[in-house]
């Protein structure tokens, strides 16, 4: 600028420029600018300060150049400067340069966008710094004529040449710089665009592989490296089939070619399972979306690849879990259903369909729940009320009806759930059919109650029957001592005897209560009966006892009282349970049986013919022989105090005997116990006949009888009756005394008539003490207990004739005669 401006300047004298000084002045300008701009661009942090320093340097450079350039002038004049104007020129240069640099660096720091308009301001300032300084400097100068010798002309430059040269060179340089700037700016722009694209790729969540029209990979992102296991260098330049499993490679090539013809953004192979092959050979299920990229080098295809392994696994896990829960519902023992407010089953499981006796779920879903399933429609409404207020119902027992109208008792839990469409309530309900269980429970309670009654009755029966026997015998015997004309007394005695008889019947009834009722003999299929009772048996057994019932039948029918047989079974199973505190197996079998001759020889009371055998066998603790010998004794128990009554097996024995059957016990300590009950097969349906044999006339005899009875009154009336009918009677108050009497008399005694239960020694023990079968005399047992109880455990071994108390005179005499007449 300076030299162009000097070209515009002229003095009356010619002006030449000294070359070295001129060059120095240009050097000053360049160096000062360099230092100034470098300083100003130095630190962004303290930019304001550094720009101030840099600007000052540039300003001083401008001024320095100017005054050095002036000093290069060679002319016939001397230059004088006005000092304050010089100062002003320097100030202008410094201030304007500072301001210009400040703005320029603000743009460089990005505080303004680098538009032309934005750059114009600092440009004018800087231009002003140069021009303002120059012309102020020229203003400060006065040129006084002087004869100055022309300096030794090393190089004098002509102002026109200098100005033109510097001006042209300057303009050329400016143009060059601006062009360079444009190129650089464009270069920076492209790099930035690429950088942005790359960042976009790297920040994408998916792996991205970009390939050209031939399928060669040109770009991948870091996610793609991670996903495939290849490095960038191993992928770029290779065909994309490197990532495709071999079996899909051909198809992939074809599809790729097809896509290149019709490129559009879409997901790849919709509906197909796509797989990506990793470097290690592992395949991953993936989802791929494709997009075309039009570039100057042609079409590029970008593939965004997403690993869906986890999603697949989650889907599979979900499917598995759903199947599992569906399975649970389908196979549940409980009925499970969803019911809508308007009384329709929305879903039902097979258990519910079975429970309600329907053939299919579809059929069940047709019915109106309130009308067809609830026995009482009001209960349906009540339940809804409860559900509305409490949102759930737990363990409610209500009556339902099956398809055929059969009532069933169900226990249900229900809770309200929101229906999918949200506009009506739906109830999810679990239902259990407890009909059978409730019935069994009632049956069990009844059995237990009866057992208690029986126990109580048995307890009083002995003494009470003794009392009745005394009354009865005396009343019957009385008329024999009356002379003629005492008919009224005879009537009174007969009245007494009838009343005593009635009392005896009442005791009998009470006793029979303990067996539900009087035996009612009917034709019974034991296999059927046992199979029917097995659920009840299961109920009284703990979990750790396995019940195996083998009662398929068919077996012969027997004459039996079903209730009694059930009671027998219940007793035996109860005992078996108590014998297996640590669990085990309980077998209940029913089968036809025939007692062989050997067995019958050892069990004389076993009649000939076919039997049905009911056997109950446990794997429990078993019994030793001593215990076995006594198990049928009344009030004998091996169970802890309070657990057993001691009557169970006694009653079993008695009942079986009443059925004309046999009981066989086999037991080994530690191995378990087996009870075999033999019921005789019914000969004919009409075998119910009682012995209606014509009553033989009462006969006495002349034999000697030992009467053993602990009840004094009964003993004395018995003696009286027997003596009256011609017998010689000895008496004893208990077994021990009887033993003494017997030993004293020995051979003279033809028959012992003994009470069975006595203090000290009972009837059966007495029989044994007398030497048992073969040695002992004939014996007739009497008892107020039922026969079975009175006989006790030894009865099987000693089938002694039995006389039930209270006896009538006829009973006593007939019984005595029958035993004496036996061969």
């Amino acid at each position, binding site marked *: 600028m300076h030299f162009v401006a000097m070209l515009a300047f002229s003095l009356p004298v010619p002006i030449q420029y000294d070359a070295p000084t001129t060059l120095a002045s240009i050097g000053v300008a360049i160096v000062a600018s360099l230092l100034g701009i470098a300083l100003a661009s130095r630190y962004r942090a303290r930019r304001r300060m550094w720009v101030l320093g840099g600007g000052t340097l540039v300003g001083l450079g401008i001024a320095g150049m100017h005054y050095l350039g002036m000093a290069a002038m060679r002319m016939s004049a001397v230059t004088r400067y006005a000092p304050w104007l010089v100062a002003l020129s320097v100030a202008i240069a410094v201030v304007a340069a500072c301001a210009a640099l400040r703005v320029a*660096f603000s743009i*460089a720091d990005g505080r303004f966008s680098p538009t032309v308009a934005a750059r114009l301001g600092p440009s004018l300032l800087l231009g002003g710094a140069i021009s303002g300084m120059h012309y102020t400097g020229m203003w400060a100068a006065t040129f*006084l004529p002087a004869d100055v010798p022309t300096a030794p002309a090393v190089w004098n430059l002509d102002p026109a040449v200098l100005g033109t040269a510097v001006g042209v060179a300057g303009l050329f340089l400016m143009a060059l*710089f601006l062009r360079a700037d444009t190129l650089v700016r464009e270069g920076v722009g492209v790099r930035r665009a690429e950088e942005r694209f790359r960042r976009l790729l790297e920040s994408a969540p998916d792996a991205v592989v970009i390939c050209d029209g031939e399928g060669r990979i040109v770009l991948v992102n870091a996610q793609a490296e991670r996903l495939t296991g290849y490095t960038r260098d191993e992928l770029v330049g290779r065909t994309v089939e490197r990532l495709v499993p071999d079996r899909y490679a051909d198809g992939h090539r074809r599809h790729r070619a097809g896509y290149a013809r019709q490129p559009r953004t879409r997901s790849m192979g919709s509906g197909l399972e796509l797989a990506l092959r990793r470097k290690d050979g592992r395949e991953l299920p993936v989802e791929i979306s494709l997009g075309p990229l039009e570039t100057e080098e042609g079409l590029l295809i970008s593939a965004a690849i997403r690993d869906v392994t986890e999603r697949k696994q989650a889907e599979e896990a979900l499917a598995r879990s759903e199947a599992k829960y569906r399975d649970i519902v389908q196979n549940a023992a409980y009925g499970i259903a969803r019911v809508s407010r308007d009384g329709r089953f929305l879903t039902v499981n097979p258990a519910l369909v079975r429970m309600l006796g329907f053939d299919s779920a579809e059929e069940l879903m047709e019915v109106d729940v309130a009308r067809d399933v609830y026995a009482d429609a009001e209960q349906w409404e009540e339940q809804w009320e409860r559900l509305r207020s409490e949102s759930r119902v737990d363990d409610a027992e209500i009556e339902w009806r099956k398809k055929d109208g059969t009532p069933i008792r169900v226990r249900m839990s229900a809770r309200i759930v929101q229906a999918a469409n949200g506009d009506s309530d739906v109830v999810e309900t679990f239902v259990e059919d407890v009909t059978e269980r409730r019935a069994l429970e009632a049956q069990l309670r009844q059995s237990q109650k009866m057992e208690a009654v029986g126990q109580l009755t048995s307890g009083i029966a002995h003494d009470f029957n003794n009392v009745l026997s005394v009354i009865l015998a005396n009343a019957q015997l009385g008329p024999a001592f009356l002379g003629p004309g005492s008919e009224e007394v005879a009537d009174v005695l007969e009245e007494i005897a009838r009343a005593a008889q009635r009392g005896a019947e009442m005791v009998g009834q009470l006793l029979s209560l303990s067996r539900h009722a009087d035996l009612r003999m009917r034709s019974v299929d034991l296999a059927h009966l046992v199979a029917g009772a097995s659920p009840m048996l299961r109920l009284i057994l703990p979990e750790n006892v396995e019940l195996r019932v083998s009662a398929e039948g068919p077996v012969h029918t027997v004459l039996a009282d079903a209730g009694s047989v059930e009671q027998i079974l219940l007793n035996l199973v109860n005992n078996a349970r108590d014998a297996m505190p640590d669990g085990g197996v309980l077998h209940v079998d029913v089968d036809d049986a025939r007692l062989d001759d050997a067995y019958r020889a050892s069990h004389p009371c076993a009649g000939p013919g076919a039997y049905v055998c009911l056997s109950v066998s446990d794997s429990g603790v078993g019994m030793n022989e001593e215990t076995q010998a006594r198990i049928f004794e009344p009030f004998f128990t091996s169970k802890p105090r309070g657990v057993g009554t001691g009557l169970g097996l006694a009653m079993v024995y008695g009942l079986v005997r009443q059925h004309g059957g046999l009981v066989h016990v086999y037991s080994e300590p530690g191995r378990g116990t087996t009870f075999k009950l033999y019921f005789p097969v019914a000969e004919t349906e009409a075998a119910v006949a009682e012995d209606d044999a014509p009553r033989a006339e009462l006969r006495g005899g002349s034999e000697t009888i030992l009467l053993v009875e602990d009840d004094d009154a009964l003993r004395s009336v018995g003696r009286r009756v027997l003596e009256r009918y011609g017998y010689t009677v000895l008496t004893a108050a208990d077994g021990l005394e009887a033993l003494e009497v017997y030993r004293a008399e020995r051979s003279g005694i033809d028959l012992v008539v003994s009470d069975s239960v006595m203090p000290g020694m009972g009837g059966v023990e007495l029989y044994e003490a007398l030497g048992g079968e073969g040695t002992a005399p004939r014996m007739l047992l009497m008892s107020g207990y039922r026969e079975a109880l009175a006989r006790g455990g030894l009865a099987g071994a000693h089938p002694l004739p039995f006389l039930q108390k209270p006896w009538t005179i006829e009973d006593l005499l007939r019984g005595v005669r029958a035993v004496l007449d036996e061969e």
Partner: protein
Amino acid sequence: MPYPPSYDPALVVLSLVVATLAAYTTVTLISRIGEVEGRDAYRAWLTTSAMAMGVGI
């Protein structure tokens, strides 16, 4: 008596244009300096803008 200086108005205008153009070039180059990456490129850029300024003056 000092010599009376005289100015050619056209050339004065040209001088102003040259000054402004030089300043514009310098400012343009400086404003780009933030985009230049690398130490050498930065130095070259700095030198170029300083040259524009120096020559312009």
